[in-house]
């Protein structure tokens, strides 16, 4: 089973393997493995270290995810969007995501709930600056689970940038994923005269029933 052969070697690997001009840095507080450049940020990149429950890489996946306002076009009530809101992979897959930001503001593509022994705070994180793209790789564990994918800028998940990564059979759909699952806090979207209609209906039915009962 491959093991991390020291932070420096790991950094060197990343520098070699990445097409971007990246800088490696250690965050003093959280020890996140973090690379950043003018294009953005990759956190907890993992090409080689296998999760404990994986004997080998089962499959390779390459996803290109584009993000921005244009991907919310035609989605009522959403402002931001992603080109793909659901990804299905096999347990123990290695996933390389190229995250393309089509907006003039920052966006993120983050996976949560990964094993913390491999991904500090359980997170794999891509952040792309305006008009830029970043690429990162991670390996999912062997269990069947549905992971949250989102942009963690204030209100971006709520306004459309929520997705899910289904590993194996997954563990059920998450709420409020555009095109996949229903909105947990869906408004009623009733016309303004609904209350009048209810009163009118109640009156009509009441009078009708009263009249029928009186006849019998």
């Amino acid at each position, binding site marked *: 089973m491959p093991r991390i052969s020291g932070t420096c070697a790991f950094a060197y690997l990343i520098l070699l393997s990445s097409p971007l001009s990246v800088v490696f*840095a250690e965050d003093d507080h959280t020890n996140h493995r973090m690379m*950043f450049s003018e294009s953005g940020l990759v956190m907890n990149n993992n090409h080689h270290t296998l999760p404990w429950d994986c004997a080998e890489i089962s499959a390779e996946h390459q996803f290109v995810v584009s993000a921005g*306002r244009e991907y919310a076009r035609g989605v009522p009530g959403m*402002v931001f969007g992603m080109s793909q809101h659901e990804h299905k992979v096999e347990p123990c897959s290695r996933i390389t995501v190229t995250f393309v930001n089509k907006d*003039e503001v920052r966006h993120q593509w983050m996976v949560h709930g990964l094993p913390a022994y491999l991904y500090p705070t359980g*997170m794999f994180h891509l952040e792309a600056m305006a008009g830029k793209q970043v690429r990162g790789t991670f390996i999912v564990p062997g269990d069947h689970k549905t992971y949250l994918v989102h942009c963690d*800028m204030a209100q971006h*998940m*709520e*306004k459309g940038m929520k997705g899910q990564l289904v590993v194996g059979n997954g563990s059920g759909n998450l709420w409020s994923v555009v095109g996949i699952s229903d909105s947990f806090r869906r408004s009623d979207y009733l016309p303004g005269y609904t209350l009048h209609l209810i009163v009118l209906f109640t009156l009509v039915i009441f009078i009708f029933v009263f009249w029928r009962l009186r006849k019998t």
Partner: protein
Amino acid sequence: MITGKRRLLLLVMILISIVAYPPSWYPQAFRIQLTKWFGAPSYRSLPDSRQADSVQAEVFCPPDLSGRRKQHQIEGVTISESGLCVADNPYAVAAFVKGTNNVSHNTLMRSGLTLDAIEKGRDLDGDGDPDEIHIRLEVAELNGVSTESNRPVTQYAIAPGVQPGSWVFAPKLQGMARENFESVNARADLRLPSPAIRVEQGDRVKITLENTHYMPHTLHLHGADHRFALSNGQGNDGVPITSELPVLPGEARTYELQPRNAGTTFYHCHVQPHVHVAMGLQGLFIIEENRPNNWLQTMNVGAGFVRASSVAVKESFSREYDLHYTDLDAELGVRIQSSNDPREVTRSMHREYDVTDATVDYFTLNGRSFPYTFRESLVLTSGDENIKLRILNGGSEGIAFHTHGHKFTVTHKDGVLLPAASQTLQDVVWLASAERIDLALSTYNDGLHSYGPGIWPFHDHQRRGVTTDGIGPGGNISAIVYDEFLDENGWPKTQGVSYKPFFTEQYYQKQIPVWQSYAPGLFSDPANDWLMLGRVLVLTLALATISAMLMVNYTGRKKT
């Protein structure tokens, strides 16, 4: 007619209702007459005082685990010691001074800022400081709606348990909006108010508004010298009805200015300003006088104490504070929490909300209300100091700024120096909505400028300003605190009432009697009179039975 058993039941019920009817409800004249006949009824003790619920108070002053308060020397920048309980991130201060493009990666990572958050370029006048400044601002929503729970997300409390929905201009931060994945709280540098911004007179300043929010916004530089339009025709005033289209979500626009005059000015969003400014899209914009080697702290996150003051300020003052006052309307803020559909939110905020019928509920200083103001917005002094206060009233109405124990001098109004003859000593000054004043506060103990060491509150002297939704003490109360009255953690050694109640949600939810902590029993809530409740219920039962019987009798008679 009611007959037999029914008549008996009716009579019993009437009798019960007469007996159960509380004598204290009898007409007053009748009661007096009864007293004349029989004398006053015998003594009944009033209900006891209710026992105080045990509530958990927050820690007044959270420990400074990462040593932010002490003096730092980062990237060659001296970041002065902050005596306050909660201090700014010194690495962010260093990055604001040097420019995020000019600091080491370690400093940048620890600052939490992106590489392009504050870019500082060439020194155009050759005086040893950069004159090309590129600032990037994002727009963030605090206490917004969650799609997964009824609690808001990216939470920010202005006081214990008080989390009004708000919008802010924010520095361009790297990574998540929350503290961490498990938390629903906004990270510490994502907060109210929008950051105070500092540039130097004559700087070529670019400010890019990167609209990360789901609504349209602009940037309007209120009182700062800027052109109406750029040379390419792009509007530069930020006013949708006269200058340019708003910046839509996901889009960015760069505003430019090269201010010819120094002064304390104001920036805010100008899209539907009666709502957007009220939501928090407002901040101090300070143009410092041009001096050699004048490296400015381009942003002061959360306003308050300036840890790296300008050369000109240091010439005359030992400390400088940015004081940003504003007010918030709970009925407005809640509208972003009531739906996740931006179309519904827009309708609710811009058509259903009527600012002409509105009343504000919360009064903040630097984005917090008392007691949180004591953590980060005290004005500290060792005595015999000249302190500069830059004050902005971003609220909907005027404030009557008042200091206890001191008379101050207003040196500038709306960024313009006042003639010497107008610079008189005063202890109350009126700030109209959007007005700025620069104020010189001397802590020289001469019985006029200062009455000597102590903990001297300062606040809006209008009565509602010292409350949080009508509960006092709250609102924008803060204090001038002399060293000998400050403990080593930055918390004032107050000698009055216990602060425990103020650090509970329940106090501001109006659940705790205001004097309970030091006069237990005397002014607590009285317990309920269960006997009285029993009486009222029996009376209700009897009257209901009587009316039901009469009704049955009436309808029954009609049928036959």
